């Protein structure tokens, strides 16, 4: 497999590639981040006309929605689509494909070494432009940028898994120094045929990111310790989730929570008079809205092993609960039970769909 040397900024080169793919009819649509000129903000956009790519900024540390979640509904349209995804978005999509909620068949995935994204509250009125120079400088030194999402700072999976094209963004993406586009699959070679740029046989070298990895792991240790070493306990649980207003925002932005009728949105949780009467006969008082901790614990058991740690849930939480950190910490433990890494391999079944006869012998 070959690679393409990037002579400009990584973002611009990916944009050129998308334009080439659209113009040559190799794809019908592109999914990429795009600047909103009206308010200096960004959002994810589905683009079919090449001129609309003018404002596209494929490589930008902003995640307004987990693109994996959005792709699940459009990847089965039969149209050929190229999508620029952050590594965790790609992993989330892999998890969705395992759940038959999407398909790689007509999809070209382009991903890049990710430095983490800024929380949404910073993504407005041109604030990102002010933060970017420092951000680029920090990641080029293999350090962890401040101000990014807590789970991004603690993310060790910043190198894309299973992308057709991997763009190595060494940090100096504005100058383009050291940025290379690696073609990992036959599909990538096929799609980029005829696309200009100097080709080389250079292979992606993960060891170049060792310093970043070490820094991220150190951050992860700190983040997990902040939710106490042995977990919060019952009182700590109240501290953590006691503020929850029960909006289920974390659930709706979660790329893994795809169920059209979530148990927690179903009639099982339509609280009616008999429910309150029965409950109050036992306890005398009831916190309202009810079952908020139940909701989080339920989600933890239902999907934490597939959590990719994208941080959308924490970002949208109106009361600032560190949902993503709790899910990432717990998710790593539930996944480790089955040597599972979410998004690693699309052929690997999710842990609750398969079993081994000889395992977990300490149970039962």
């Amino acid at each position, binding site marked *: 497999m070959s690679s393409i040397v990037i002579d400009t900024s990584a973002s611009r080169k990916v944009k050129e590639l998308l334009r080439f793919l659209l113009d040559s009819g190799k794809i019908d649509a592109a999914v990429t981040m795009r600047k909103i000129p009206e308010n200096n903000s960004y959002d994810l956009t589905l683009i079919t006309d090449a001129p609309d790519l003018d404002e596209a900024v494929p490589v930008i540390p902003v995640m307004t929605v987990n693109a994996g979640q959005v792709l699940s509904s459009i990847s089965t349209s039969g149209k050929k689509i190229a999508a620029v995804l952050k590594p965790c978005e790609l992993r989330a999509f892999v998890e969705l494909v395992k759940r038959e909620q999407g398909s790689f068949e007509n999809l070209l995935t382009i991903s890049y070494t990710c430095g983490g994204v800024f929380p949404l509250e910073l993504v407005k009125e041109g604030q990102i432009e002010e933060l970017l120079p420092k951000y680029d400088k920090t990641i080029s030194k293999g350090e962890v940028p401040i101000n990014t999402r807590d789970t991004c700072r603690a993310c060790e999976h910043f190198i894309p898994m299973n992308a057709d094209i991997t763009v190595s963004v060494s940090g100096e993406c504005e100058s383009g120094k050291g940025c290379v586009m690696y073609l990992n699959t036959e599909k990538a070679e096929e799609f980029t045929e005829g696309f200009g740029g100097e080709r080389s046989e250079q292979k992606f070298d993960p060891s170049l990111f060792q310093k970043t990895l070490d820094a991220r792991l150190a951050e992860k240790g700190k983040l997990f310790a902040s939710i106490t070493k042995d977990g919060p306990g*019952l009182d700590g649980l109240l501290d953590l989730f006691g503020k929850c207003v029960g909006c289920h925002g974390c659930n709706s932005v979660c790329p893994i929570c795809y169920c059209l009728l979530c148990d927690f949105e179903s009639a099982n949780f339509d609280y009616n008079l008999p429910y309150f009467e029965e409950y109050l006969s*036992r306890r005398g008082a009831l916190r309202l809205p009810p079952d908020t901790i*139940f909701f989080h614990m339920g989600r*933890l058991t239902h999907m934490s092993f597939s959590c990719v740690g994208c941080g959308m849930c924490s970002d949208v939480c109106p009361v600032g609960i560190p949902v993503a950190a709790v899910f990432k910490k717990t998710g790593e433990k539930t996944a480790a*039970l089955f040597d599972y890494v979410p998004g690693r391999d699309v052929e690997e079944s999710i842990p609750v769909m398969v*079993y081994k006869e000889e395992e977990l012998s300490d*149970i*039962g």
Partner: protein
Amino acid sequence: MKKEFTPRITSFLCKWCTYTGADLAGTARLQYPTSIIPIQVMCSSRVDPVFLIKAFLSGSDGVLIGGCHPGDCHYETGNYHARRRFAIVKSVFESLGLESQRLKLSWISASEGPKFARVANEYTEEIMELGENPTRKNIFL
């Protein structure tokens, strides 16, 4: 000294094995405590993790799942899936620092009446050691 109390152990028992085993314990007049509150399910894999959490947060002092021995499931593979789900719930409890001893899974076949009585006795004792579930009085859950 700890105040004596009768624990309440919500027990999800598989219709084909453990529930029948409990029946056998009864017809054989084996003694086991009244702490076991049986709920018959068609298979141990019918027990969604949220059942365990709901029972725990509602104040059950213990939650027991009873199923067929691995390999003996009436639906062939249900209990293997139940075992994985149970491991996940237990891991979530441990990760959150909650008392995971309040969750138990046991394989008891239809012919193992004595085993059912023994598990019921032992688990009740274990829960009595542990004391009342603190969630029982907590209005914030």
